[in-house]
């Protein structure tokens, strides 16, 4: 999705510094002070993780830190909210992945 650079009331935004970061191994451009969720959406990335058990795709839902749906791994720190974390140059972001469900596997193998 594109950024709203021109707004009839808020005016223009320009002169913002660009930073680059990685999401699942791919490099993306963001602007300084942009959250991970905003920067990824601006790059057309909506899917931030899959449900750890069922694998269903998830993106940000509330965008203000309540719902925890946008949690990603940031520089090795898991369960970080993409909607409240500002992108830094060379940040390494990983999407939330499917986790092994040992108990389910045991039940299935029986």
């Amino acid at each position, binding site marked *: 999705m594109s950024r709203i650079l021109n707004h009839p009331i808020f005016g223009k935004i320009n002169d913002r510094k660009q930073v680059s970061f990685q999401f699942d191994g791919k490099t993306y451009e963001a602007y300084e002070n942009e959250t991970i969720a905003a920067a990824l959406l601006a790059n057309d990335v909506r899917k931030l993780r899959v449900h750890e058990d069922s694998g269903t795709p998830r993106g940000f839902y*509330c965008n203000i830190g309540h719902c925890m749906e946008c949690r990603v791994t940031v520089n090795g720190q898991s369960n970080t909210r993409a909607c409240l974390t500002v992108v830094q140059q060379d940040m390494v972001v990983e999407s939330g992945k499917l986790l092994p469900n040992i108990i389910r596997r045991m039940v299935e193998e029986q």
Partner: protein
Amino acid sequence: MTNFENMVICRCEEVTYGQLLSTAAEHKCTARELKLRTRAGMGFCGGRTCRVSVDKIIESVSPDITPGDIPLKYQPPVRPVTFGTVGEKK
């Protein structure tokens, strides 16, 4: 046809409307028991998104509950924190 039964109420634990309704009807649960039986509201967000919906289901199946009560207790931590943060040392 609608997809009600399979509609997810608790997003974190993927508990559906159908599961909640049948559990509530079968066990005539309190909100707390419904939560413990289904895991609704016990996922990562701590029920921040689904609490209101779970409360409504309880109201719809238990006639004794008035909307004035807060059926589910709030407990700390109200935000997810790491063990490191909780176990801070000064």
